[in-house]
């Protein structure tokens, strides 16, 4: 049987700077023109650091995070092609850490990994027919375009889907706290609290913006609302005290879906203000301290380990491509 597509030649791009790179695209998205309502809790001139009072101790705190890694770029040269087209071999992983406050013990609850080949639009899976997937099992996904960034976006989407599916699998009970690393998304369950550790994007201005670097450990800012296609509530907390640093060091931002009531938001805000500083690493242990929370750091390490050795994966890939 002659199938013109199956005669396509797959090869591994000899060199690519993206190999083995661990990408983190989490805090992009909001456009500069996003509208902020800084008076949902306090009016702007009353902004100050707020001490919180916990209604009850959270019994379970969950942390969700995902990672991705580009393993190699494939070149597919079909019979009718003039130039070879790029595909991406990558891996994504996501997991949950369950911090049981009764036992005072954390453990990895779920660890999921996927190895993926992302094909550019218009290329059929049969093209990879000659690739021996028994050596390196993978799943096939399609991107919306054929640029390399389109392929990367498709990978990113896979990771997000894994994270969301994990969030949905959590047996949530009121009083628990679910922290997802990065921004909260529309498809997240409403109980998910997004944890953003970088402060590159400035949301506040005027008095509120001045208050943020002033808050002390154990305080939060008033809650503000981020409008847009997916409205959210957000607040800042201080997770670590850095003597000698500038005020924005040790500040993290949290956000939840605007579907929640203000009481619910305040409850989550109180829990994060109280408990996340406990999970912040001492400065000397982590270059991203104190914002890079210990459970999230451990989870990323564990997930990355689960992806396997990048060199070995590459060797297997070459074997699958060339030793067929």
């Amino acid at each position, binding site marked *: 049987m002659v199938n013109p597509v199956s005669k396509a030649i797959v090869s591994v791009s000899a060199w690519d700077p993206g190999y083995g790179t661990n990408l983190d695209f989490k805090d992009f998205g909001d456009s500069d023109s996003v509208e902020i309502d800084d008076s949902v809790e306090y009016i702007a001139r009353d902004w100050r650091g707020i001490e919180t009072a916990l209604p009850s101790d959270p019994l379970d705190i969950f942390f969700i995070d995902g990672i991705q890694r580009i393993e190699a770029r494939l070149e597919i040269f079909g019979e009718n092609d003039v130039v070879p087209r790029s595909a991406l071999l990558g891996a994504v992983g996501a997991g949950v850490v369950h911090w049981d406050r009764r036992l005072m013990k*954390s*453990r990895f609850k779920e660890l999921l990994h996927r190895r993926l080949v992302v094909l550019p639009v218009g290329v059929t899976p049969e093209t990879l027919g000659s690739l021996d997937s028994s050596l390196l099992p993978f799943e096939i996904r399609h991107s919306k375009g054929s640029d390399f960034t389109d392929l990367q976006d498709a990978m990113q989407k896979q990771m997000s889907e894994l994270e969301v599916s994990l969030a949905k699998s959590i047996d949530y009970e009121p009083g628990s706290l679910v922290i997802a690393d990065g921004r909260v998304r529309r498809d997240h369950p409403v109980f998910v609290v997004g944890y953003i550790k970088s402060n590159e994007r400035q949301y506040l201005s005027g008095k509120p913006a001045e208050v943020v670097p002033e808050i002390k450990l154990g305080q939060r800012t008033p809650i503000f609302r981020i409008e847009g296609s997916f409205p959210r509530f957000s607040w800042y907390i201080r997770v670590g005290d850095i003597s000698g640093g500038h005020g924005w060091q040790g500040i993290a931002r949290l956000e939840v879906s605007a579907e929640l009531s203000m009481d619910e938001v305040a409850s989550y805000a109180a829990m994060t203000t109280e408990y996340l500083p406990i999970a912040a690493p001492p400065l000397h242990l982590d270059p991203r301290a104190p914002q890079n929370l210990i*459970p999230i750091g451990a989870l990323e390490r564990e997930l990355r380990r689960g992806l396997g050795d990048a060199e070995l994966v590459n060797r297997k890939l070459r074997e699958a491509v060339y030793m067929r």
Partner: protein
Amino acid sequence: MSEQEAGTDRVGRVVGDSRTNTQEFRVIVDDEAYLAVDDLVVVYSDVPGLESPLATYGVVTESESTYEGVSYETDVRRIGDSGVLPAERIRTASVSITRMIPEVWTAPLAGEVVNRATGPSRDDALYVDDMGRSMPVGLARDGSPVYLDLDFFDGTKGGHMSISGVSGVATKTTFAFFFLRMLTGGSYKRKTTDDHDMIGHSLQNTRILVFNVKGQDLLWLDKPSLEFSDIDREMWDKLGVEPTPFQLVQASDESQASLKPNIPSVSFWAPPRGDSSVDSVLPNANRTGVTAFYWTPREFIDKGLLQYVFTDASDSRNQLQFLLERVQAQLRRWAVNVAGTNGAVVLRHPSERESSQEGNKAVAPRSGEQQIHNLEEMVSVVRSYIDPDDIDPHPDWVGSIERGTVLAFLRRLEAASRPNRLGSLVRSGSQQSINRDLATVTVVDINSLHELAQRFVVGVLLKDTFEEKEETGKRTPLSIIVLDEMNKYAPAQGESPIKDMLIDIAQRGRSLGVLLIGAQQSASRVAPDVMENASIRVAGRLDPAESERNQYGWMLPSTRARAKLLKPGTMVLGQPAVPLPVVLNFPRTPWATRAEERAAETDTDLFENLDSSLSEDI
């Protein structure tokens, strides 16, 4: 492989982050399992070309634990206190490989299932299937017997046993007697044949000679122990020997009719009191049933015991030895029995003897002849020949030996013949030498004797035992000699007739059926010739510095480390049939090992009699 994996004995998997090899591997232990040091494990690995999986056996040499995912030591606080850091606590174990079946030396595969070796696989791990005749010598931690291959003790393939350990904690002598009780209490047949095993049967006729060197520890072998518990009885049951004390035989018992079968017997011997002419023994033994032993001047001369008076390392100077041999030869030529007193002699030149009184026929002493009833008198008569007051020494006795040597000889001889040294051991009277055929175990108590006399007794009895076997040339019945403080009798440095004899026994005794069980605090201080010939090696707790010496090279490094911490009742056993040291426990003995342990048997007897007499009256 699934067959083995399904077994309930699974304890973990072979660790794959480092290389396995044919000497060792590590195990990641399952959450619900554990592995302790000395545990035995087996791994089955597929090897291309082999019909069945390769079985790799090993012994756990170290047990370890860590948190996975920890990069800083302080991380432990974040795991243990707030619990904010997720981490996995794991147990691992290091295993030293001891055997492969079949003998295809291929490393166990990383990731393979590790099983606890139990039942037949445990026997395989301990080479029990390779043993000619296996005898239990203790229990492993899991309560199953540890076997010793008798072929390597009784001389078939090897012989002798050496027991090392710190005094007081190592329970060396107790182990030796536990071993002997097992040896004489059971029948251990060769597995490979149905024939009656000559040696197996003759074990019960084995003759054991023991010197009680320190305290009175060995004088209670026939007395039940208060400390013997039900737990000990259970252990003996597992070992297959009925735990009874040895049964006492006295020299005065003519019939031995009261002896029960299958229980080894024991006789006790002690030197007589120095100041007494009657046969009372042991100034400090508050026990009965001990027989006095000594040698008559006649035996002293005939057996050539004089050389055992000169057992100090400094006595080996050539001239002194030369004179000693000359005096010994003359004593033998000149001695004539004195009529009326058993064992007493006079010295008379052979040419002066009446023709009718040739040989050992007793004579009446002539006037002027000094009778020799003890060692002091013998020394006095010898002096009159080799260093007389007014006349020249007798040429037959001294030859051309310098006077200085003669004086040195006499000085030593006189010192040795004092009553508190050898004096009480040589005397005329009824025959009282030790009868080793009386009982299975002959305990000779020399703890109250001067060191010189101790060496004399040991030397004489070793010689007797060895010569007897040399004459018969038969290996059976076996003759076993138990000697504590081996470093004193066969020291690593220096020369002495006893050391020579012990080396001779160590080298040739195996084929003659004379077997040594030597005990010492430090093997490094015993003559290498003696140590190296011991096939069976046993160690109790060792001094830390001692355990590092190459005399303990038969142990694994982990076993050496543990040997510093062993408790009484725990020993390490090394034997040629099993190329790994095995740690074993042995039960308390049913007999007392100290005076305080004795059960008050006489009291109960009294009450029993009282009861019956009372009931008769009523």
